[in-house]
Structure formats: structure tokens, C-alpha cells
């Protein structure tokens, strides 16, 4: 190599200078890029395209990943917001129902100032075929006691508390066979005893016994609690007369009553914790 440069160095230098001058002149005279640059550009063009394509692909992927991650986060956040809003809507519906119930109850409270109410929700319905019962979500923690009367929002009698626990109580409805309370026909003032009858319980009915044989009751007559004896408050609507029949002895009549409270669809009730005994 050393010998080659010693022998031909000048020639090589000369050739290089000529080529350089020629290229300089050509590029000066040419309106496009120099041939060398052109060749280099042409040769490197596919590589550049490839690099660009790869870089674009990576950028796309990176952006896609970033976008996806951001969208997923946003989606999760929106889902949470929707869940919260749905919960708020449910709460609002519950509040609205409770509000309507309390408005009705307020009317009753205005009529009967001696009543002390405790609102409760129905958590369970009849648990056997031989009793008609409801379970409520309040008990001794709200001073509810056995034999308290339970009414719906408009003051219709639902039943009587039969058993109480700390945060629950069982109510036997007016159609249950255990029901036995003084009753009075509102229009005629006839007195009798409202009793549950198993034969009628399945149809959601009860009886009013010991009515006078010549009683003049009409279908639809309201029957209310008489309050006699002071066990239960007076004036609570038990139901309305459906039919009147003579009993087997013929000495008295009995009426079949339809409860005014809709026992199958109750969700909220009020327990009457105390009342004034009317003598």
C-alpha cells in the first residue's frame, strides 16, 4: 500500500481532484441534485421509506397504546360516574316513595294527634301457608312492642305486631286466624268482633262476628276498630263489608270483610307505638 501510494499517489490525488472539480462544475451547472447525491439519494430512498414506515408503525402503536390506556381509564371513570348516578336515582326514587308515604301519614297524624308512629319497611311476607304475616325491619331498637297496631299510610289497619326482636318484628295481618278485635260498622254503629278465618284467609278476607241478626249492612260499608277495651286504637279502618250472612244458630249475623289495606303489595307501613285510650 505504501509502495502503491509512493508510485501512484500523485496520480490518485490528481484523479480525485479532477473528479471533485468535475462534480463541482456539474452540480453548479445542473438544475437538479448532483449525480452523486442523486445516486446516493436513490439508493437510500427505500431504506428511508422503510425507516419511516417502521417509525410510523411504532408511533402509531405507541399512540394507540396511550389512547387505549387513556380511554380505558376514562371508561372506568365514566362507569363509576354512571354507577354513582344510578345509585343516586335509585335513592331519589326511594326518597320519593318515602316522601309520598310520609305525606299521606302526615294527613293521618293531623287527624289523630295522639298516635305516635314509627315507619318501617316490609322485609318478608308470609312464610307458611297457615299464617298471614309480614316481617318489618324495626323492633325494640325503635320501641316497638307486641300488640302494637300496624297501619298503611292512609290509616288502614294492616295487622298486629305478634313478636319483636331487636331490629325486626313479625306482624300477623288482619286476615290471619289469630286476629280478634272489637270492630264497629262506621255507618250503622253496629258492634261486632273482627276475626281471622282460615277458610277466608286464602282469599284475603276476614269475618265480623256477633252482629245483630237484623243488622242493615250494605256492601261497601266501612268497618273500623271500636277501641273498646283499650287494647287497640279506635277508628282504624279494618275493611269494607262484602257480604252479610246469618250464622248457624240464626241468632246473629256475620259479615265477610275485604281489608282496605293492600296486604299483597305493601312495602312501607307505620307502627302505632302509643295512642290515647278513649273511654
Amino acid at each position, binding site marked *: 500500500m505504501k509502495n502503491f501510494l509512493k508510485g501512484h499517489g500523485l496520480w490518485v490525488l490528481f484523479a480525485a481532484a479532477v473528479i471533485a472539480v468535475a462534480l463541482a462544475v456539474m452540480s453548479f451547472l445542473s438544475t437538479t441534485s448532483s449525480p452523486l447525491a442523486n445516486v446516493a439519494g436513490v439508493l437510500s430512498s427505500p431504506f428511508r421509506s422503510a425507516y419511516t414506515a417502521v417509525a410510523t408503525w411504532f408511533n402509531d402503536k405507541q399512540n394507540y397504546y396511550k389512547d387505549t390506556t387513556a380511554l380505558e381509564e376514562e371508561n372506568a371513570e365514566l362507569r363509576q360516574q354512571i354507577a354513582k348516578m344510578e345509585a343516586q336515582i335509585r335513592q331519589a326514587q326511594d326518597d320519593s316513595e318515602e316522601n309520598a308515604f310520609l305525606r299521606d301519614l302526615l294527613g293521618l297524624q293531623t287527624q289523630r294527634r295522639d298516635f305516635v308512629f314509627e315507619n318501617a319497611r316490609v322485609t318478608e311476607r308470609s*312464610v*307458611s*301457608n*297457615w*299464617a298471614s304475616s309480614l316481617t318489618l325491619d324495626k323492633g325494640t331498637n325503635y320501641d316497638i312492642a307486641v300488640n302494637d297496631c300496624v297501619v298503611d299510610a292512609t290509616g288502614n289497619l294492616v295487622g298486629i305486631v*305478634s313478636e319483636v326482636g331487636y331490629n325486626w318484628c313479625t306482624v300477623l295481618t288482619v286476615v290471619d*286466624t289469630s286476629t280478634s278485635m272489637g270492630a264497629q260498622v262506621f255507618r250503622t254503629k253496629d258492634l261486632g268482633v273482627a276475626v281471622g278465618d*282460615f277458610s277466608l284467609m286464602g282469599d284475603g278476607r276476614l269475618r265480623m262476628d256477633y252482629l245483630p241478626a237484623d243488622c242493615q249492612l250494605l256492601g261497601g260499608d266501612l268497618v273500623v276498630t271500636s277501641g273498646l277495651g283499650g287494647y287497640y286504637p279506635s277508628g282504624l279502618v279494618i275493611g269494607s263489608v262484602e257480604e252479610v250472612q246469618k250464622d248457624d244458630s240464626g241468632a246473629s249475623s256475620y259479615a265477610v270483610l275485604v281489608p282496605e289495606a293492600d296486604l299483597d303489595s305493601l312495602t312501607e307501613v307505620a307502627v302505632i307505638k302509643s295512642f290515647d285510650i278513649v273511654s
Partner: protein
Amino acid sequence: MLARNETIFKWCLYGAATFLCFLAQGAVFQRITLWGVIPFLYPVLAAVVGTLEGPLAGSIYALALGVVCDSLLPDIIPCFYTLIFPLVGLCGGLIAKGLLSAGFICSLVSSAAAFLLTDSFHCLLLWANQSAAWEAGAWTMVREFCVTAVLVIPVTLLFQAVFRKTHVYD
């Protein structure tokens, strides 16, 4: 004859199976009304265990079941199930011992007897309470049994599984 710890294990398993049935009754069957009545599993439990375990053990199990039922279900008298379920267990045990060998048919017959006893007792108490309803009571009994009869199969399978697991060498 099972060892003491095996006996304890067996009754724990029976307890767990009973708990499962209580869950099913409370969560599902109580909310289904068919033919005007709800399926009522508890007498079936007393009867089926009676057929598998015999009159004595069956009666004791049914007594415990009755106590639990009385604490959960409202009824005419507070000790209704405690009084009647031991009879149901005894009846199931006697049927399995002398009439039919334990199995589905035996469980079905014992369950029919269980509903007959339980619901007759209901009618008797209503009569004693001066609100007799024999006809309505009998009709309720028939419907209650028909609606619950189909559930005798899963209950029998469940308790038979416990019985087989705990009586491997019998």
C-alpha cells in the same frame, strides 16, 4: 355403630344440609306461590331424616328442627313445630323400618304422612281455637303436599349423600 367423633361429624353434615334447605326455602320457595300455596320443605326434612336414621334419631333430629322452625315461623301456638315434628320423624322412621326401605318412595310416603300430621294438627288447633276449618285445611294440605312433593327428590338425594358419606362401613 359409629364412633363418637364420627357421630358428631355426621350430625354436623346433617346440620349443614338442613341449613342449605333453610336457605333454599327462605330465598326461593317462600317467594313462589303455586296453586295458591308456597312449597313448604320443613316437614319433608323431618320425614326424610327419619327414614334414613330410624325412629329414635329421626325424632331427636325432628325435635331440634321443630325448635328452629318455631323460632323462625309464626304459628297458632309458639311450640307448634316442636310438638309435631318429633312425631313426623318417628313416623318416617317407622315407615322405613317396617313398611318400605329407605329411598325415594319411602321419602314420598313419609312426606305425605308428615303433611297429614302437621296440617291435621293445624286444623285441630284451629278447631280448639273455635275457628274450625277442616275442609279448607284439608284442601290446603293436599295442595301443599302436591306442590312440595317434587322437592322430595333433591332433599332425599342430599340427605342420602350425607348418610352414605357417614355410613361407609354399613
